[in-house]
């Protein structure tokens, strides 16, 4: 398969999950395991461009596929607008759900450049966050959407940045 633009190969047991192959064999530990049952979304990656929970896919099923993980989202050192949005709008606290959340959010924006708040919230229902109450995650995705449309994002809800 191709992972983050590079061809990779490996031999695995038939039962090996894609997320374990990414983490254990390729050492791409940015993709997290939160529930091994497809509910929490911490393991979300892009499989042939589609946000996919990598704990629900066997590594062997991804043979020949194009995989993008959180490590491959920034291009040439430039953050993806969603990554930038999460930083600028405090879209993360402990950061554990964040890679999956960012991959899902990037998927939403790839399909719909101007999502409403309700559409963002609905689109992220497969990704659980226990820290943020999602408030600032929604602000982060709105920030990214504006950036990707070439518009100035709405100002933050707090006082002006110092640094």
């Amino acid at each position, binding site marked *: 398969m191709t992972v983050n633009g590079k061809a990779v190969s490996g031999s695995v047991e038939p039962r090996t999950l894609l997320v374990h192959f990414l983490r254990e064999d390729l050492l791409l530990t940015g993709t997290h395991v939160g529930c091994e049952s497809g509910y929490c979304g911490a393991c979300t990656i892009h499989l042939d461009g589609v946000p996919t929970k990598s704990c629900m896919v066997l590594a062997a099923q991804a043979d020949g596929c194009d995989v993008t993980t959180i490590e491959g989202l920034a291009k040439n050192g430039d953050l993806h607008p969603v990554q930038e949005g*999460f930083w600028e709008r405090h879209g993360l*606290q*402990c*950061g554990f759900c964040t890679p999956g959340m960012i991959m899902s959010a990037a998927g939403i924006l790839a399909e719909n450049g101007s999502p409403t708040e309700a559409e963002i919230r609905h689109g992220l229902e497969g990704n*659980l*966050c226990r820290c943020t*109450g999602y408030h600032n995650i929604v602000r982060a995705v709105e920030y990214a959407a504006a950036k990707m449309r070439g518009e100035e994002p709405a100002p933050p809800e707090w006082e002006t940045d*110092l640094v």
Partner: protein
Amino acid sequence: MSTTTSALGGVIRRKEDPALIRGRGRYVDDIKRTGELAAAFVRSPFANARINSIDVSAATAMAGVHAVYTIDDVRHLGPLIAQVPVGKLRPLLADGAVKHVGEAVAMVVADNRYIAQDAVDAIFVDYEPLEAVVDLKDAASDRVKVHDDLDSNVLLAWVGHEWWADVIAVEDPRPKIEEAKQRDDAVIVELEMVNQRLIPVAIEPRSVVASWNEGYERFEVYSSSQIPHALGGAIAKTFGLASNAVHVRAPEVGGGFGCKLNVYPDEILVCFASMRLHRPVRFTETRRESAVSTIQGRGWVATATLTGTPDGRILGYELRALTDMGAYSQNFTVAIPLLGLWVSAGQYDIPAYFEAKCVVTNTQTTDAYRGAGRPEALYYIERMIDAYAREIGMDPAEVRRKNYWKNDQFPAVNNTGLAIDSGDYETNLDKLLEMADYEGLKRMQAEARAEGRYIGIGLSTYLEICGFGPSVLSEIGFGWNNYGLPSSFSGSGLVRVNPDGSATVIIGTGPSGQGHETTWAQIASSVLGITTDKIRVSHGDTAESPMGVGTFGSRSAAVDGTATYEAAVKVRDKAAEIAAHLMEAAPEDIRFADGGAHVVGTPGRVVTWEEIADVAYRPHRGPDGLDAGLEAHAVFSPGNATWPFGSHIAVVEVDPETGNVEFLRYIGIDDCGNVINPMIVDGQVHGGIAQGVGQALFEEAIYDDAGNLLSGSLIDYPIPTAGDLPSFELGRTVTPTDVNPMGVKGIGEAGTIGSAQTIVNAVVDALAPLGVKHIDMPLRPRKVWQAIQDARG
């Protein structure tokens, strides 16, 4: 000597984030040790059973299995150490009996987790099931005893006016309350309410990897812990080592909420296995396993009685609770209701009686879950204020206002003998009512009701106690004494200006998303005038940091933050001496700003931190008698806890056909004293409210009569999703504390403490026209629908 404090109260983007948003953060399960093995556990399917035999032979013979351990291998290590050892301590592995579903019975260590899990399935345990007791009232009756060697399932009762009778004398409020009940005009409201069992659900499952380094006779441990020092102490004590022979690191921790504020048997057992096998050993829990092997929270059933006058003056409040401890006592277990006791009367100057019996049951241990005792206490009193207001036909905001502690009463000694540091409850409430447009909301509700819609306005105010100390509480268990680390909950901070002029701050906290690297950089920057980009904050490492308590109880900023502030002041004072020498001025005339020092009145001539550090590390260049180096350590032991407060309003609409509850608005005004970083403070409130919403509407650890946990996965234990929550409207008032020099109180748990009852009050308000007086949480659609049907007869 003054300094710039511009970095306090401002927003900077988090220093933690660049790694985390790129997937480059390092959580325990991301840190691989050479040659590591994986552990997995056989867990009990029964809530109460004798173990007749355990056959591990097939598992031991499997390829890739290195060892299988049972209690016979580890009994000599004793039970799991608890900080508050009241009740039955947990054996490291089941010792002849199991007392809850999920209790660890045997441990397998194998080449990898897949093989370890295969071997778990090959172990045969012969159980003899016994009757389990799950219901709290049933357990409190001692009809079935959980542990043969305990006198009763009721371990102790916390009583509000005599929790520390030897030291703090408080008048028994009951005679006054009884007298009030006899008044002709007495209005008495009583409700029995359940504050249900919850599962913390940190998104990162707990993970630990331990390595016994034989050559250096030292354990190296990485654990997803909120309390790395306490864990290190517990390991050292268990194995008879000095505490400096255990190096614990808590790297990135993926959420805690109290569930990682504990020492777990698996953390001790991986150490044991590593010592035996001479290999690093890892254990990472699965999600389903987490539900039964990590502590749970809440689990109260209580009867609350409120006595008042027809015009809104509360004359007495009583709460009698049974609180669920689960089967074994771990870190704080029986101490959790005590935190509720301290705030049992909320923000009110009223006679209040509190009693909480700690009851063991055949269920997983309970301990601290976000708020820990305080959400329970505030839930009860704030539900009762609402019920009373409804009974006398008075606006619930006005009832609250009428019974608040007034500004000139602070420090106010409450019904438990503790002094509330500071408060301005009316201003806070007024700000909320204005921001919510309370009168407008009531008009909107009246119009909606006329159209047959069920819109509810829920109000709650809350009082919190956090930032523990005071130090004297270590005499009753608030410290890590039982982990071999005699201490109170003092904070510590070490500040070092390095030879190149950058600064390092090292703290003994164990954050799990609270943004300490950012906030502590702001604290140090505010004192030293070194910009935050040149300050690196390090935490969660027992070898690197001074003795630290960890992160919990909304304590880190108020206690460890203060210690860091004081350490930075010491460094600044020394730097001022050096700068004065270099500029031939008096130290008291030196000011720090913009990355260097200048003499007051002449900001143009600056000595940089690089120049100051150069002298500090080459003392012969400095004034006579200068000690080399530029670092300081401070320990801060607060004289009191801090007491944040706030007011929240939820506006909901209930669909009478489905029972579904939808948020129209959620508004919160919180007061945590002075604010270091408003962005981070707001984020803490958002997350706190979300967990309160989870309890109010969705979450419940449901045990059947046989003690099976029926809601152990994320599909039947639904935590809120993005689609379940509204955007929150937040504001704040600022009432500083004088308990610490920065005037900060704490914000980690406030949102949770303020929210669940706000939402229940809103739903009950929505259904008030039908005569609904109470519905127990979680207010899932079916339950709400049923309440509507019952009310309609």
